[in-house]
C-alpha cells in the first residue's frame, strides 16, 4: 500500500533535527528580550494555612529589585479549569506550591535573594491529604466557596463523571465468573528535560506579547486575554509565541500561575519579565499525573465472553482544578469500549485535598484506567480458566462496531496487534512456563491492550486545526499551522503530508508554527491529535492550492513551453520544435503535479511538457495584475462532544488500538523485576513518518516502564520529597537492556490523513499492566499498586496485599 506514495511512510529525518543537533534551536531558556527583568516566585511554606501577614519591605529595598507583588497590591486574576485558583493567594494557602508573592529584578540572583527576604506569617489550619478522608464529614474544607462564590459543603470537585449502560446488577448475577480487585496508581511527574518558563512583555498599546512553553497557544491566548480584562485592560490582546519546547507531555495543556505572575510583573514594570523554573521548582510547582484508586469488577459467561464491567474510581485532584479534571472522559473510553462488553457502570469522584494539584500527562487518564482494567481482566481469565491471550482474543474489538458509549469504531487492528505480541513473546511456549526458579529467578510473560482516541477528541467546542499554505516565487511552500512541535514530530509528519498532498518534495516545505498572530487557530496539541487534524487540514489546503496551480497552468503552461521552445530554437537554429498538441494544455483538469513538476495528466513522461512549479508561479506573479497562491483550510473532525448527562457521544473521528507485552524475570531474593523482552504492536492506521513513529512508541514505552517500575512522586503531608532526578528515577540508557519490538499495524483509516491515526500518547498506556501481568505469570501473585518496586514484590511473595 505504501508504494502509492512518494514520501508518506518513509524514514525521512525530522526537519527540526539539524538545528537541535547544532545547539541552535531556541528554547525559552535561551531567549533574551531587550531590557528584560527576571521574575521569581515566593511559594507557600504550609499545606493549609491562613495568611496573616506578608512583609515585603526588605525585598523592596534590595538594589536591583523593580517590583514586588502580592495579592494585596495586584489585581485579582482567577485561573484554572473551573476558575478556582487565584494568581496570588490572599486569604489562605491550600498547597505547598501556592504563590504568595513574586519579585522582578535586574538579575536572577537578586530576584532569588529578594524572594528570600519576603516574610509570610501563617496560621496553620487542619489539612487533609487522603482523598477518601477528604470525602468524610467534618474533613477540612479546601475551598469554602466555589468559583462563583457559592459556599461549598464538601471537597468534591463539581465535575461529576458517571457512565451507565445496560443492567450491570443483572449481568453480575448471570455471570459464570466474576473477578473483583482494588487498584492504585501513584503520582508521577512529566519530567520534561527542558523546564517550563515564559517571557511576558507589553507593547505601548498595552497588548501582551507572551513567549511561553505551551501546547495550547490559542486557548492560552484566551486565558491571558481574560487576565488582561481582570487587570483593567479589557479589549486588549495577547499574542502567544511558542519557542522550541524541551518536551511537554501534558504540562502545557493548562496556563500556569507563573505565566500570570510574569504578566503582572511585566505590566507593573513596563519591561519584559522572564520566569524560567529551575528543576526543583519544576517538580514542586508543576502539576503531576493524578493518582487514582479503583475498585473494579468484571464478569464473563462460561465461554469467556465479557458480561459486565463495573468501576468506581477516586481521583486525588489536589488543591485546584486543571483540565486534568476531564481525564475521566478519556478513562471512560476504554472503560466503556475496550473489548466488547454490553453492561458497564463507571463512576468517579474527583476530590480536593491539600496535595499538589494534578494535571494532564501523556495518555490523559488512560494509563490509570488500563492499569485497573487489564490487571482485573487477567484475573477474570484465570477465574474462567482461560488463557489471558485467548480471553482477550474472544473479547477483542472488531471493525465497524458501535460501543455502548456511542463510540463509532471504524478501522480496528486489535486482532492483529494481539497476534503480533503473542508471536513476538512466543506466548504459547512461554506463558506459565517460567515459575520454576532457576538461580533464584522466575520468568513470566504478560500482555495488555489499549484503546484511545485516534482521530482527535472533542473536549472543547471546536476541535479544529487550521493550516495556511503559502507558495512563493521559488516553489517553496510555507505550511503555517496552529499546532505545536514539542518533540513528538509534528513538523516531520506535517511536512511529509503537505509535500505528498501538494505534489512537492519535502525539502520545499517549511512548517511554521507557534504564533497566534500569524498562525491559524488550533484547539491545541493534545489527544494525540496534532498530525491527525493538521495533516487533514494540510490535505484540504493542498487540494485548493493544486486547483489554483492548475488554473494558472491552463493559462501559462502553453505560452511558457512555446517560449522555452523558441529560446532553444534561437540558440540552436538546427533545433526542430516537435509537434506539440497544445489543445491538451488548456484546461485545469489536464494537469497533475508531483515532486515540484507540473505535467500533463495523460502524458506524464513527455519530457518537453514538464514545467517546474516555480516557473508557473513566477509567470503568474510577475505580470500586470499578477497573482500569487495562498490557500487555507480549517479541519474540524466528524466527532462529537460528550453529552454531559449521559456521557455518550462519538468523541473521536476514529480510535486507536494497541497491545503491549513483556517477558520479565523476577529475582525471588531481591524482588527486582527485570524486563527481558518487550513487544509493542500499535494500530496506527498508516505510518506517516517511519522514523518518528518508532521514536514515539519507544519513548512512550520507556515512560510506561518508568510508571510501572520506578517512578513515584513522593509526598509527606503534601510536601514533595523527591524534587530532583536523583530521587525521582526516570529510566536512563543502561536501563534499556532488552530488545523492544515495535510493530506498526496499518489499517488505513478512512478519516485519517492518508489513512493515519493519532499515535502520540498510546505508547505508554498499557505498559504497566502488561508488565504486572507478566510478573503475575512469574510469581503467581498480583501487584495492585504502582510502581512495582522490589519491596512490593517481596511483600507480595510473603502473601501481603500490595
Amino acid at each position, binding site marked *: 500500500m505504501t508504494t502509492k506514495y512518494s514520501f508518506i511512510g518513509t524514514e525521512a529525518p525530522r526537519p527540526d533535527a539539524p538545528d537541535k543537533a547544532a*545547539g541552535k534551536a531556541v528554547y525559552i531558556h535561551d531567549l533574551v528580550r531587550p531590557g528584560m527583568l527576571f521574575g521569581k516566585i515566593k511559594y507557600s511554606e504550609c499545606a493549609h494555612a491562613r495568611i496573616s501577614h506578608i512583609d515585603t519591605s526588605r525585598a523592596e529595598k534590595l538594589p536591583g529589585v523593580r517590583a514586588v507583588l502580592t495579592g494585596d497590591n495586584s489585581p485579582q486574576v482567577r485561573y484554572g479549569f473551573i476558575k478556582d485558583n487565584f494568581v496570588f493567594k490572599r486569604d489562605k494557602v491550600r498547597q505547598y506550591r501556592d504563590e504568595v508573592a513574586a519579585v522582578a529584578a535586574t538579575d536572577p540572583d537578586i530576584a532569588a535573594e529578594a524572594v528570600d527576604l519576603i516574610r509570610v506569617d501563617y496560621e496553620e489550619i487542619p489539612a487533609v491529604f487522603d482523598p477518601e478522608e477528604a470525602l468524610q464529614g467534618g474533613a477540612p474544607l479546601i475551598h469554602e466557596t466555589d468559583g462563583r462564590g457559592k459556599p461549598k459543603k464538601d471537597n468534591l470537585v463539581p465535575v461529576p463523571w458517571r457512565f451507565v449502560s445496560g443492567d450491570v446488577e443483572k449481568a453480575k448475577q448471570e455471570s459464570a465468573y466474576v473477578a473483583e480487585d482494588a487498584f492504585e496508581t501513584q503520582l508521577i511527574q512529566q519530567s520534561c528535560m527542558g523546564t517550563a518558563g515564559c517571557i511576558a512583555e507589553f507593547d505601548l498599546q498595552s497588548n501582551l506579547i507572551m513567549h511561553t512553553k505551551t501546547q495550547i497557544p490559542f486557548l492560552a491566548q484566551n486565558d491571558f486575554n481574560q487576565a488582561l480584562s481582570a487587570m483593567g485592560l479589557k479589549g486588549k490582546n495577547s499574542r502567544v509565541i511558542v519557542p522550541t519546547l524541551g518536551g511537554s507531555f501534558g504540562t502545557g495543556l493548562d496556563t500556569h500561575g507563573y505565566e500570570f505572575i510574569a504578566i503582572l510583573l511585566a505590566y507593573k514594570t513596563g519591561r519584559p519579565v522572564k520566569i524560567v523554573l529551575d528543576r526543583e521548582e519544576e517538580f514542586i510547582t508543576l502539576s503531576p499525573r493524578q493518582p487514582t484508586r479503583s475498585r473494579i469488577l468484571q464478569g464473563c459467561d462460561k465461554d469467556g465472553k465479557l458480561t459486565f464491567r463495573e468501576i468506581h474510581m477516586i481521583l486525588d485532584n489536589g488543591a485546584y482544578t486543571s483540565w486534568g479534571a476531564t481525564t475521566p472522559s478519556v478513562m471512560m473510553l476504554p472503560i466503556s469500549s475496550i473489548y466488547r462488553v454490553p453492561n458497564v457502570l463507571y463512576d468517579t469522584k474527583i476530590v480536593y485535598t491539600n496535595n499538589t494539584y494534578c494535571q494532564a500527562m501523556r495518555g490523559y487518564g488512560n494509563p490509570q484506567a488500563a492499569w485497573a482494567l487489564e490487571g482485573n481482566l487477567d484475573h477474570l481469565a484465570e477465574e474462567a480458566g482461560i488463557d489471558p491471550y485467548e480471553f482477550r482474543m474472544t473479547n477483542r474489538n472488531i471493525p465497524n462496531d458501535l460501543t455502548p458509549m456511542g463510540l463509532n469504531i471504524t478501522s480496528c487492528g486489535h486482532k492483529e496487534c494481539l497476534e503480533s505480541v503473542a508471536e513476538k513473546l512466543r506466548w504459547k511456549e512461554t506463558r506459565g512456563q517460567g515459575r520454576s526458579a532457576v538461580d533464584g529467578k522466575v520468568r513470566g510473560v504478560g500482555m495488555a491492550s489499549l484503546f484511545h482516541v485516534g482521530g482527535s477528541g472533542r473536549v472543547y467546542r471546536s476541535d479544529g486545526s487550521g493550516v495556511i499554505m503559502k507558495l512563493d516565487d521559488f516553489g517553496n511552500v510555507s505550511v503555517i499551522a496552529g499546532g505545536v512541535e514539542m518533540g513528538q514530530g509534528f513538523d516531520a509528519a506535517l511536512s511529509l503530508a503537505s509535500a505528498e498532498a501538494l505534489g512537492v518534495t519535502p525539502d520545499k516545505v517549511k512548517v511554521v508554527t507557534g504564533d497566534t498572530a500569524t498562525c491559524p487557530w488550533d484547539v491545541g496539541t493534545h489527544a494525540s491529535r496534532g498530525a491527525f487534524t493538521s495533516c487533514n487540514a494540510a490535505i484540504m489546503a493542498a487540494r485548493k492550492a493544486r486547483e489554483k496551480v492548475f488554473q494558472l497552468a491552463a493559462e501559462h503552461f502553453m505560452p511558457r513551453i512555446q517560449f522555452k521552445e523558441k529560446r532553444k530554437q534561437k540558440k540552436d537554429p538546427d533545433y526542430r520544435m516537435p509537434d506539440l498538441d497544445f489543445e491538451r494544455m488548456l484546461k485545469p483538469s489536464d494537469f497533475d503535479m508531483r515532486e515540484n513538476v507540473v505535467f500533463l495528466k495523460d502524458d506524464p513522461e513527455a519530457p518537453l511538457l514538464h514545467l517546474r512549479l516555480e516557473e508557473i508561479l513566477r509567470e503568474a506573479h510577475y505580470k500586470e495584475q499578477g497573482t500569487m497562491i495562498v490557500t487555507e483550510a480549517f479541519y474540524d473532525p466528524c466527532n462529537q462532544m460528550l453529552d454531559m448527562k449521559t456521557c455518550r457521544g462519538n468523541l473521536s473521528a476514529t480510535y486507536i488500538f494497541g497491545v503491549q507485552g513483556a517477558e520479565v524475570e523476577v529475582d525471588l531474593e531481591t524482588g527486582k523485576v527485570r524486563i527481558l523482552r518487550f513487544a509493542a504492536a500499535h494500530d496506527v492506521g498508516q505510518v506517516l513518518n517511519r522514523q518518528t513513529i518508532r521514536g514515539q512508541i519507544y519513548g512512550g514505552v520507556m515512560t510506561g516502564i518508568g510508571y510501572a517500575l520506578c517512578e513515584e512522586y513522593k509526598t509527606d503531608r503534601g510536601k514533595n520529597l523527591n524534587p530532583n532526578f536523583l530521587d525521582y528515577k526516570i529510566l536512563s540508557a543502561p536501563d534499556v537492556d532488552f530488545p523492544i519490538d515495535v510493530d506498526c499495524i496499518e489499517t488505513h483509516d478512512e478519516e485519517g490523513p492518508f489513512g493515519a491515526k493519532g499515535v502520540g500518547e498510546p505508547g505508554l498506556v498499557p505498559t504497566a499492566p502488561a508488565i504486572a501481568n507478566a510478573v503475575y505469570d512469574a510469581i503467581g501473585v498480583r501487584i495492585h499498586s504502582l510502581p512495582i518496586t522490589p519491596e512490593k514484590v517481596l511483600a507480595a511473595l510473603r502473601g501481603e496485599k500490595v
Partner: protein
Amino acid sequence: MKKLITFTLNGYEVSAEVESHRMLLEVLRDTFDFKGTKPGCGQGECGACTVLVDDVNVDSCLYPAFEIEGKSVTTIEGLIDEGNKLHPVQESFVAHGGIQCGFCSPGMIMSATALLRENPSPSDGEIKAGISGNLCRCTGYVQIVESIRDAAERLQENAG
C-alpha cells in the same frame, strides 16, 4: 571575589572576569552566549549541560568556572565545521531519529563524542554506559543508541 580566567573555547583563546561562585555552564551561556549548552537541572543529574573539557565530558553546571583556567572547552557549537557542516556524530543523530524535543541532544552528542574518541567501536552496552549520565524523556534511547552506532561507523570511515 572576581578573577580573570583565560581558556580555549571552541578553538579560540578567550578571557572573562568571573565571580568565584559561577559555574562553567553560566559562563558559557551568559558570558560567551553559547546557548547550545542546556541548563537541565543545575545539579549534575541530567547531563543536558555536558561539554568537553580537554576532551573529557563533564557536567558544566557542576564545573567551577575558576577551574577552567588554561584548559580547552568544546561545546556543541564547537563541533560544527566551516560552512555550517554538522559533525558526523550530529549527522548521525539527525539521520537516525536520535533527536525529539532536542533539549538533551547537545549534551547527549557531547557525551557520545567523548565516548567515540575513547572507544571508536563501542558495543551497545558500552554506548549505553557512555551516555548513562544523560537523561532523555522523549526517545527511550533506542534511536540514540542507533545514532551512536552509526556515528562510530561514520567516524571510522572518515578516519580510514
